[in-house]
């Protein structure tokens, strides 16, 4: 593979090494490395977009967070795709269809759970018609928390998936992902529910605080403990 320094349009660790060695213009690589490189830089996505997160997914493919630069192109057909991005609430009626689409994707394939609904059902999780999380039916490789996660978050998730793919191909042990709620991820910003225009009373702020975001007792106590400091700071700022 001939390397011309003026013509480096993509990055590979190998090029940096070759760059440092004067006189070297040709390198050999194993087929496996080449395949890994190709695989991880062409993760074509299949948008399993069922609700609002799907809109965020569309935006992420726009020109602001351009996913094409990572080689991730949205495909309309599951048969062309490597990654299923589960973006949105999963209803019981949709679940068998999602599974069918997943089965139509050729191996190797990965699944990204985008947004709280796809991760755990979020605030719809106790509803009769909602499946509490895509990982109840499909193995998930990367969880992207948020409601909705923005384009940058999706990009970070895809980067994480690239790392995973690379490590897996190299035969290294990859720690399975846990749901962010069990991994004690940072909870959604408090500013989302409180203090938009400064009209809420302290009692209302405290009520929001102790509400718990998904009805789980253990998580509720976590939330209160973790954000008590944040709340007191907020109240101090507001001079109450």
């Amino acid at each position, binding site marked *: 593979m001939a390397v011309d320094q003026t013509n480096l349009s993509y990055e590979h660790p190998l090029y940096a090494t070759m760059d440092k060695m004067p006189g070297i213009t040709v390198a050999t690589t194993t087929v496996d490395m080449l395949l890994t490189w190709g695989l991880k830089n062409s993760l074509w996505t299949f948008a399993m977009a069922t609700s609002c997160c799907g809109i965020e997914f569309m935006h992420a493919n726009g020109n602001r967070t351009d996913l094409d630069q990572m080689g991730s192109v949205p495909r309309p057909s599951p048969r062309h795709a490597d990654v299923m991005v589960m973006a949105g609430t999963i209803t*019981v*009626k949709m*679940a*068998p269809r999602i599974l069918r689409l997943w089965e139509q994707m050729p191996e190797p394939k990965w699944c990204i759970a985008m947004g709280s609904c796809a991760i755990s059902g979020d605030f719809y999780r*106790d*509803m*009769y*018609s909602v*499946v*509490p999380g895509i990982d*109840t*039916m499909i193995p998930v490789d990367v969880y992207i928390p948020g409601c909705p996660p923005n384009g940058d978050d999706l990009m970070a998730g895809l980067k994480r998936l690239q790392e995973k793919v690379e490590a897996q191909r190299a035969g290294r042990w990859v720690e399975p992902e846990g749901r962010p709620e069990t991994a004690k991820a940072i909870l959604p910003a408090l500013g989302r529910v409180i203090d938009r225009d400064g009209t809420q009373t302290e009692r209302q702020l405290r009520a929001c605080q102790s509400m718990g975001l998904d009805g789980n007792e253990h998580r509720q106590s976590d939330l209160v403990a973790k954000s008590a400091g944040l709340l007191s700071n907020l109240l101090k700022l507001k001079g109450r």
Partner: protein
Amino acid sequence: MDATLREALAARFPAVDLDQDVLLVPAADHYPLAALLKEQGYTLYVTVAASHHPGPEGDAFEVATVLRRPVRGAPSVAWRVVLGADPHLQSLYPLFPGADLQEREQLDLVGVRFDGHPNPVRLMLSEDWVGHPLRKDYAPNMPHAPWR
């Protein structure tokens, strides 16, 4: 409600109290009332909504229908029908094709059957669903295998 319509309704349905905001009509008058309103220019089928009212004497169901004239600012006419434990009502599909999906929705979620509907199957929930979730006695956490 304008005077012409009021006259027509009073002549055709003398038993109905026309001073109510939402007219209470017997089930047998459901279809004729809609037909008369359509003749009077109420050609826009706005909505149908059913609700479940469990009581000591057994279940009761209420079906409310709204029609209006397709004119800016025109008032709408709403009426309701009270049904017993086995709720079924004449479908308005022959008059208003737009009633198709709305009546299927009520069939799906509340379980009111509409006689004469061309395609009475569930609209929102899967075809093999058991029960009607908007009935008051439906357990909210009812498991639906294998997904829940």
